[in-house]
């Protein structure tokens, strides 16, 4: 849902970054220097901060920090001097804003449970960047930045002004145009908060979008009073939750060695992030576009499933992690659904199948009362704990987990030994284990708890004789683990692809209504969901741009104020 906001932000961002690329880069550098100074003063002011605490025993992992993120990635991004889009900037500014607030209110150090958490989060977002500025190549800049501070401010203000203008053009329609009759009330109530404190602007902006789109889904179906009331309550609850939403700046590596920095909301699914990346990168729609997690240290990778929560997964990375997130086309992501006969029938050889039968097969496998896990079994090599030796065992896949046949027994179900249950582990493709672990072949898979990031006896390594077996196992495990959800993901991805061909310009909100409605574009905006894309994207564009601009200006105003205060 939220990608609506981020999306639109990015459209805005791109327009600007296209022409103001260099300016921005300069600006950013200077701004970083400024940040550096700021943090120094912050450090002086508040030595008691959560992050400066002597670290607790590290094995306690992230109890205290609700956030972890790879410093390496950000570091690299900065060192390379890539263009960093406004997204990232905004997130950082947001966090500064928060930080400034904490300083201005010294009492808040005795934090109430909830607030404290929230600050910690935002704090953390910004901190890797700070760390890198002090250690990285930007180090030399602070002196220069001092001089150009005014420049930057004016530049920023200019930028925000132009954005304001752009916003104004559309905002008149945006604040009043409501997508459904019932939503109108909500968004209008929300409108003042745009102009109110910057503090909440960021959150409420995305909350509006999410609320709106939520509404689009349900709205129009029922007009009953009870429903409406329930909806209102839900909206209120949503707002309460919204106040605590975490956001994360991530770096996504493209297939052409470039990378993109973007901000993701903790509630966003992989599908949503993919959609926004696809919108931005103009690489053509294909269901095969994937977000791939590469764990460098363990030489393994995994395609995130579309329904997974991205932030949750990225939070498993350690702070100094060299892990990468790749945005890349992978045919193996949905190969299972394109040629189900090769995966679901437990046959050894590949074969052709008529489309009609494929559909029937998928229907049979995924749409019954329970998902039938393909009967995959056979000899695999298992790496022995702590050794570089591999042992052959006869493994079987069942819905309840992976089993093997103990020595000297037949493969009757009751005698099987449970090797792993799949609830807590994910399946990864191993990379070049032949040289790393002396694996018998290159076709390896690994199973581990997503939080494990370093070598451990809790990671299980399996090696297959050929690539076909490898894919069968990996896909079988995915089916056993995710069941029908996988098929739903695929259908969703296909819908997106079809819709992309039908529509020249895309708004994420209208896609969701499905391809059936795509052929009947409606011009009125007070029709739920299927509204004409022109009006709608325009309105949300305006909204988010105005938000961005207000954040910029407010943040800088406060920043300079503090600056003055500390000077005095």
């Amino acid at each position, binding site marked *: 849902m939220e990608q609506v906001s981020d999306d639109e932000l990015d459209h805005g961002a791109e327009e600007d970054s296209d022409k103001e690329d260099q300016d921005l880069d300069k600006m950013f550098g200077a701004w970083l220097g400024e940040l550096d100074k700021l943090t120094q003063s912050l450090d002086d002011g508040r030595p008691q901060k959560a992050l400066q605490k002597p670290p607790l025993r590290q094995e306690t*992992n*992230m109890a205290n920090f609700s956030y972890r993120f790879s410093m390496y990635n950000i570091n690299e991004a900065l060192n390379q001097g890539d263009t960093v889009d406004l997204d990232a900037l905004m997130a950082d500014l947001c966090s500064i804003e928060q930080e400034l607030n904490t300083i201005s209110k010294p009492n808040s150090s005795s934090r109430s449970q909830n607030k404290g958490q929230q600050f910690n989060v935002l704090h953390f977002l910004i901190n890797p960047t700070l760390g890198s500025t002090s250690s990285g190549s930007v180090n030399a800049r602070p002196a220069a930045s001092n001089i150009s501070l005014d420049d930057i401010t004016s530049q920023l203000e200019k930028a925000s002004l132009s954005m304001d203008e752009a916003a104004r053009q559309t905002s008149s329609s945006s604040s009043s145009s409501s997508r459904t009759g019932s939503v109108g009330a909500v968004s209008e109530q929300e409108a003042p908060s745009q102009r109110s404190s910057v503090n909440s602007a960021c959150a409420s902006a995305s909350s509006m979008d999410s609320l709106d789109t939520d509404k689009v889904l349900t709205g129009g179906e029922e007009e009953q009073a009870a429903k409406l009331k*329930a909806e209102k309550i839900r909206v209120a*609850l949503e707002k309460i939750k919204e106040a605590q939403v975490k956001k994360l700046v991530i770096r996504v590596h493209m297939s052409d060695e470039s990378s993109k920095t973007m901000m993701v909301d903790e509630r966003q699914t992989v599908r949503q992030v993919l959609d926004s990346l696809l919108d931005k990168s103009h690489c053509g729609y294909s269901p095969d576009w994937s977000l791939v997690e590469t764990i460098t240290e363990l030489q393994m990778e995994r395609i995130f499933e579309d329904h997974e929560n991205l932030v949750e997964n990225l939070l498993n990375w350690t702070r100094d992690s060299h892990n990468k997130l790749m945005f890349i086309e992978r045919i193996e992501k949905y190969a299972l659904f394109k040629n189900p006969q090769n995966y679901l029938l437990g046959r050894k050889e590949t074969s052709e199948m008529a489309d009609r039968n494929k559909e029937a097969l998928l229907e049979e496998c995924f749409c019954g*009362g*329970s998902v*039938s896990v393909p009967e995959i079994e056979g000899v695999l090599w298992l790496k022995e704990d702590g050794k570089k030796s591999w042992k052959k065992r006869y493994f079987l896949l069942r819905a309840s987990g992976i089993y093997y046949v103990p020595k000297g027994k037949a493969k009757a*179900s*009751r005698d099987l030994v449970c090797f792993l249950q799949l609830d807590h582990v994910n399946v990864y493709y191993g990379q070049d284990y032949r040289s790393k672990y002396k694996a018998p072949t290159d076709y390896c898979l690994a199973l581990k708890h997503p939080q494990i990031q*370093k070598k451990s006896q809790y990671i299980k390594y399996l090696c297959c004789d050929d690539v076909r077996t490898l894919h069968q196992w990996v896909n079988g495990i995915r089916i056993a683990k995710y069941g029908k959800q996988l098929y739903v993901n695929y259908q969703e991805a296909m819908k997106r692809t079809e819709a992309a061909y039908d529509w020249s310009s895309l708004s994420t909100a209208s896609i969701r209504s499905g391809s059936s409605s795509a052929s009947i574009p409606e011009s009125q905006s007070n029709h739920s969901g299927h509204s004409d894309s022109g009006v709608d994207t325009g309105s949300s564009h305006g909204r988010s741009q105005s938000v961005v601009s207000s954040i910029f200006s407010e943040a800088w105003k406060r920043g300079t104020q503090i600056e003055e205060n500390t000077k005095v």
Partner: protein
Amino acid sequence: MAAWDLSVTVEDLGSDALPVTVSVTSDLHVGGVILKLVEKTQIKRDWSDHALWWEQKQQWLLRTAWTLEKYGVHADARLLFMPQHKPLKLGLPNGITLRLRASFSCPAFQTVIGICRILNIRHPEELSLLRPVEEKKKKKDKDLAQDIYDLTEVPLSSVSQSCLYNGMPAHFVGSPQMEAIYKMLSVTQPPPAPEVIAKQYRPASVVDKAHINGRWLDSSRCLMQQGIQENDRLWLRFKYFAFYDIEPKYDVVRLTQLYEQARWAILLEDIDCTEEEMMLFGALQYHISKVAQSEPQMLSTNAAMDDLDSALQSLEVKMVGESSSASELLENMTAPELNDYLKIFRPKRLTLKGYKQYWFKFQDTSISYFKSKEESIGEPIQQINLKGCEVAPDINVAAQKFLIRLLIPAPEGMNEVYLRCENEQQYAQWMAACRLASKGKSLADSSFQSEIQSIRSFLAMQKTNSHGNAPASDESINTHSLVSPRYHKKYKPKQLTPRILDAYQNVAQLSLTDAVMRFLQIWQALPDFGLSYVVVRFKGSRKDEVLGIAPNRLIRIDLGVGDVVKTWRYNNMKQWNVNWDIRQVAIEFEGNVNIAFSCVTADCKIVHEFIGGYIFMSTRSREKSDTLNAELFHKLTGGHEAL
């Protein structure tokens, strides 16, 4: 036309009575014969259900407009005048025997539809009647005692499926006896005593399982034609393992009986599963029996939920309730926490030997600990976030050992931590908190109290288990009642309890319906699910092999190896034929694959019916209408009778 004497035995006159002789002509229609017959008996009663049965021809004379000549009835015909509906002892999937009136004159398929209408089971096409496995004569007196459920008094005309009163079909409402019967049908039975399971017949091999399938009644012929007598015993079972459109709201009886059949299939190892799966099935059975006992109101609440208005109302109340609790939470900001002295042990750390006592604090989803209560304001010695961790119990009530074993994921691997509690009370609380936290839920979660309760009741179960073999009562369940006899030998109840408890923690929060559905799902996900076996002899082969018939495929099993040698899917099937003269089934698949076999342990009609039946089942989703296309079923399963 010449009149001749036709003698008819009237069943209602008693077995010793002489046949009644009526004078008829060959062009008299059957209705006329019956009229004469009734007049002659001089008994005034409702004869509408009666009809003539021709013994030599094994045929009912149901077409009253047909003349005797048309039927070919002559003076030597032995005719029987009797009711078409007769009482039958019906063994239900839950093991209980019911007496009810079933049609002996229409095809068994229709008879099952009638039975299911009385019992309020939707989709009767999935069920069929089975001749029971012969029981030893010794238990005769016990059987009589068991046979207390009598539905023979239900007037057949009053049975209608559509309307429910008080959550029950109308014909069950009224007398307490009838309501008790409905309760028996719709509520799961308590776990059977281990001895009962051990005494039941268990198929030892795939060939044994194949023999069962020779007992299905022919659904195209009536019960009389199949030699079923009044008051005979038959089993009602789900025959086709393709359960269409299960809707818990309407399918209370269907779900319950399906669950019972699945449960018995697991307990008697009719279907194979692994030890882990058995423990999960055990945990679900435990949970289901517990919730079923504590939820007697389920039926009436279901009925209330029928009402859309009340459903909406309850939604509203729920939303209001939620919001108030949420806002309260925000206002107060004092999230609930646990504080206590516990002992901790980390097996991997060499510095800490044995258990050390600390002041523990459970907050949100994390545990932190301090040297003492006094120091709990400051920095904790350590803080552990339990989100995503694995929680396992390690308890021995008799020895007062209450350990919580935590496996906490970290970048470096999993960390093992043991927490030792002093007593049951403490253990239940901290264990519940750990379990919720592992799922990312805090103590504020509404399920916290129920989680504590379920842990306590499980502890209570272990307590009773340690005092000898307690009989299965409502509070304490012998864990041997939940698993197949194989595990009775392998584990003592005491050893079994923690293993089932382990599996139980994942299902403890399910509602009754969800738990039943989960049980069925896991059952359906077993590799051998839905396979009905028949021993066959393939054309050109010299040895017996086993044909497995599943909802979507046929498999050929080599008896020597016990392995599946070949799979054929119905999707690729072009046609199948039965040569009734040589009793051979021939099937043609796409790609010029032809197979043919004769059946050894079952009649080829049964195999034919299985295949046709499954093809019928697969057509249901395409047909939107709710009415059963009985004609198509007969066409697909009938064989030459259908022509």
